[in-house]
């Protein structure tokens, strides 16, 4: 019965949005509680639906929209785990925000936009067709734009908002191109659609992948990947994410860590069969992901703004997820489970970290870590919850991050065995750096002596409670959920008419065919629960022991290194050994590889705006110019013509006579040449 109210999961936040927008300013705390309630209701509904559906049911409702498109709700395991995660995390963050945004004049606007965001995000998740997904995808982008620019009086905030919108827009263009391509390919198949079926619905897409020419599939896959890259801040479209930290910290936690940025990963997971079928589709995903993971991590090492550190780490972690999906080329659908697991886990501890940093910033009133330090003495709760988050992120054994991230490294190794070791190497290095920058941050903030005088008090409990809850999940989720999660996710594509063996052939995974053959994960209708688990257990022995323990070493080593640099108690080295702007390399890191200079200053402002100016000149001088030129010519000629009228009557007579003579001559000649 919950399923019948699935639409409310989006409907209630929309309601909250409208209420906050129009009457919010008259409500206490800008009507924040409405947003919380709406989201919490969503959580309850999702749980109810989960209880109904688990283990092997899906919900699919659909109604026609316009032309040959529809709107619909599709809740399968993949969507459901996202729903649960988003509603849960966002509820907590909204609660936190009630404290954090308290007293801000625009708080009603904040909660309105936040509610709208929630609605859009949830709609994105359980859209049943690509167009609808795209629409919510864009709405999410809009909300991100609005919330980044929430403090619009700050020019930097306005600029960051614009940058975010435009950069993601670049990705969206590719996404849209992919959709157009996909639609036209499907349309050209003249599929006989059953009632209630529409071309862009995921089941329909899955079912007809085999009939689309592989080359087209690759193009489509690249298009969609482009969208994902833009939204999930993957290289080279990651530039907007660090700047996005201009928004309130809750926004960073909600949109730019836990939920929105994961939409890209979700999209790839959602379209996994397509990527799987497309030659080089998953390879591209793996490449982008692995590279971004390392690339972003290096930048995380040097940033001084605590939120930027977290932003870079988010980018890096999203890279992990992408890479995880990419390895699907080797391990089949199992990759989806692994990547999604890291996605969920990451959303817990990254949200936690952000909220903690927010709580710190709330007290210290600056983002700059160089002005913090020793905060731990005054903010115990914050310190320990953040410690849990950091350990989890660093992948400390038994913490969530350990299970999720390291599982990705493991399957990356399998990918290496099967295809190519580069992603594996990149990810391992990234993992080391992750541990380092995480604890660099933690030590710098909480240990040592105060480097500036700030309000020395703990944040209000309405902010602390969410931290604690999140901390629990950041620690326990891994242990609790791993096995069941994998099996549940593995069953996902079993609900649809999709044949991974054929897809593997199309996608050129024939090489791994032998390897995959034994894996139920790659078999059609691998729907029974536990199949995935079997796949797991089968996959495990594939790695030698050192691969198994390497992640642990990596995590511990990273933390140790960080402490040697930044923990005053055991300090051995001066941070300026690695940071600062003395030599090009360190400068390069500090400046984040000059990406801002290249993307904004050079490309946007010079190339694009310059060509616009050139167009303008052309338009004025040429396209419009010839008109003015012509009129000037005619008018000038007219000026001469009227001078013929001399005003002397004798001349008039002359003209008369000449007229007659000329006519006589002309006509006679015309007759001569036989013109008439």
């Amino acid at each position, binding site marked *: 019965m919950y399923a019948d109210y699935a639409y409310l999961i989006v409907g209630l936040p929309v309601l909250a949005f409208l209420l906050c927008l129009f009457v919010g300013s008259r409500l206490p705390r800008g009507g924040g509680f409405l947003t919380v309630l709406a989201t919490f209701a969503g959580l309850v509904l999702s749980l109810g639906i989960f209880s109904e559906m688990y283990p092997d049911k899906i919900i699919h409702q659909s109604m026609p929209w316009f032309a040959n498109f529809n709107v619909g709700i599709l809740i399968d395991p993949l969507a459901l785990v996202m729903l649960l995660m988003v509603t849960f995390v966002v509820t907590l963050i909204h609660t936190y925000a009630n404290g954090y945004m308290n007293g801000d004049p625009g708080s009603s606007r904040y909660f309105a936009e936040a509610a709208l965001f929630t609605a859009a995000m949830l709609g994105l998740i359980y859209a049943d067709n690509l167009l609808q997904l795209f629409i919510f995808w864009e709405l999410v982008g809009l909300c991100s734009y609005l919330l980044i620019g929430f403090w619009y009086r700050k020019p930097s905030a306005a600029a960051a908002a614009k940058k975010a919108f435009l950069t993601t827009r670049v990705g969206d263009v590719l996404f849209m191109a992919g959709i157009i391509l996909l639609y036209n390919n499907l349309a050209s198949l003249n599929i006989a659609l059953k009632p209630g079926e529409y071309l862009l619905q995921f089941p329909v897409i899955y079912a007809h992948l085999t009939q689309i020419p592989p080359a087209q599939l690759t193009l489509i896959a690249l298009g969609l990947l482009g969208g994902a890259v833009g939204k999930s801040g993957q290289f080279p479209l990651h530039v907007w994410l660090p700047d996005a930290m201009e928004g309130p910290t809750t926004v960073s936690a909600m949109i730019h860590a836990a939920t929105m940025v994961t939409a890209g990963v979700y999209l790839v997971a959602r379209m996994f069969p397509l990527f799987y079928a497309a030659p080089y589709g998953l390879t591209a995903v793996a490449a982008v992901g692995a590279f971004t993971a390392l690339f972003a991590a290096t930048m995380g090492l040097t940033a001084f703004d605590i939120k930027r550190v977290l932003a870079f780490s988010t980018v890096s972690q999203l890279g992990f997820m992408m890479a995880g999906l990419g390895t699907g080329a080797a391990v089949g659908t199992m990759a989806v489970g692994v990547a999604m697991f890291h996605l969920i886990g990451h959303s817990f501890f990254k949200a936690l970290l952000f909220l903690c940093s927010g709580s710190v910033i709330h007290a210290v009133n600056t983002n700059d870590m160089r002005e913090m330090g020793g905060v731990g003495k005054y903010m115990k709760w914050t310190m320990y919850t953040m410690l849990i988050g950091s350990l989890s992120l660093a992948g400390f054994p038994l913490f969530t991050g350990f299970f999720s991230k390291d599982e990705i490294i493991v399957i990356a190794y399998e990918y290496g065995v099967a295809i190519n070791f580069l992603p594996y190497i990149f990810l391992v290095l990234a993992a080391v750096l992750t541990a380092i920058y995480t604890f660099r941050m933690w030590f710098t903030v909480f240990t040592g002596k105060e480097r500036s005088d700030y309000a020395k008090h703990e944040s209000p409990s309405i902010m602390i409670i969410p931290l604690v809850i999140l901390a629990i999940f950041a620690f326990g989720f891994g242990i609790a959920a791993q096995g069941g999660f994998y099996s549940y996710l593995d069953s996902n594509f079993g609900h649809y008419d999709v044949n991974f063996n054929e897809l593997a052939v199309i996608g050129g995974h024939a090489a791994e065919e032998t390897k995959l053959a034994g894996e139920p994960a790659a078999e059609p209708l691998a729907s029974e629960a536990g199949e995935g688990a079997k796949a797991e257990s089968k996959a495990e022995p594939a790695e030698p022991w050192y691969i198994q323990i390497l992640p642990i070493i990596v995590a511990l080593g990273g933390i140790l290194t960080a402490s040697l640099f930044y923990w005053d108690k055991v300090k051995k080295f001066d941070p300026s050994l690695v940071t600062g702007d003395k030599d090009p390399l360190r400068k390069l890191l500090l400046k984040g590889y000059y990406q801002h200079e290249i993307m904004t200053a050079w490309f946007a402002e010079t190339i694009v705006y310059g060509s616009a100016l050139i167009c303008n000149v052309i338009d004025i001088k040429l396209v419009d110019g010839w008109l003015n030129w012509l009129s000037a010519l005619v008018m000038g000629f007219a000026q001469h013509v009227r001078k013929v009228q001399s005003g002397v*009557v004798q001349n008039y007579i002359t003209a*008369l006579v000449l007229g007659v003579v000329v006519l006589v001559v002309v*006509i006679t000649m015309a007759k001569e040449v036989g013109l008439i």
Partner: protein
Amino acid sequence: MDFSHYAPLWGEALLTVLAVLIVLLGSLMKNSGKLMGYLSAAGLIAALGLVGSNLMIAKPTLFFFDTISVDALSQFFKVVFLVVSLLVVIASLSKYTGKGADEYFALLLFATVGMMVVASSIDLITLFVGFELASLSTYALAAFDKSRKNLEAAMKYFIFGSVSSAFMLFGFSLLYGMAGSTKLTVIASATIANFGPAALIALLFVIAGFAFKMALVPFHMWAPDTYEGAPPLVSAMLAAGSKKMGFAAAFRVLLVALMALRMEWYLAFAILAAITMTLGNLAACWQNNVRRILAYSSIAQAGYIAIGFVVVGKAYGLAPTTAFNGIPISPAQLGLAGALLLILGHALMKTGAFIGTAQVASMVSKNDANDPDDISNYAGLVSRAPVTALCMLIFMFALAGIPPTAGYFGKFVLFSSAIYSGLVWLAVLAILNSALSLVYYLRIISYMFLKEPAGPKMAEPKGYVVALVLTTIAVLYIGLFPQAFFDWAVQAAAVLLPQ
């Protein structure tokens, strides 16, 4: 003795008698200007009634030893002339009231009679007499207010006019010499084409004579100066009336008597039309005197109308490929009909426009503007004299050929006939020209409506207003309900171009 069979000509008779009467009365009773005005207005209305009573006359009826023919064509032109001079008279009621008004109205009536005679004469002698009657009276009218400008205008008009009528007469004499008769039909049947150069000379001399009245470049030189200098209402008469007389005569002589020389005058008019419309529009662009602008615009319009000759010359004898409402109409007929429609339309628009200028002049000259017709006096006219401004607006758009007006419909039919007979180049040229003409029409309009008023609100004299409103209504009516007029024009055309 029974004159009843002269019934179709009572209109002319009435006006002649009335004119003489007015002169007599005028000499007897002093400052009876108003009375004269009303008398002549009444006379014109009556004449209009008489002419209208046998408008759709079936077959031509001939009078006076076959020198005068009353047929659809002649009636068409007579109606045009009568309407024009009626409007002028109405307008004049509020200008010519005092001493000398009797002469003014008498001359006006004589001119009208002259034109009517020309319209229906099918003999060179009567044609020449009518022509001169009209010319002489208008010479006098042009100088009527005896201001410096008047006299200069009259002088130029007179010299140029008499020279060109001399040309015409010489041409007539040659025609007579070649054909041995002055009857158009006889000349047509005579084989004058054999005389070669002489025939060509005769033709061009005749054309020169008519082209002077039609004001086709290069026989137009007098027109701008005269239209600018003469009393405004007289300019109206000249531009709208006597110009059309030129066309009436030209249609008769060329299409009946000189059809044998078709190719020659086809070429001649092709050249004249092209040059005329272009030069007229170009020269109008830079003028600051509104009446001069209108003068050049009416030269350009003459160029458009002359397309009618070209079409006829080109397409004469082509079988009709089109049945309009069941009646087959040949390209030539359509061209002539188009020319007639534009003549009708232009007569009205130009009368209106010149009456408008007359009114403005009369209003501003009270606060002695040095040149009452200068365009600066038209600034913000809409708030100074709303009715005048609105009517002028309609006339300007009509002259520019913006629908739904008489001007538009005339051009519509005429240009379409050009396409119909394959004269695409001419149609395109005409189209471009009417686009160019917008430059100065819009200039006047933007002065009247968009500029700040040049002075306080002004009282608008009754007579002018009545005339203007009547004209406006007519212009719009023809534009909105052209059906009857089209049929009428076609019937008139069929007189000269029977199937």
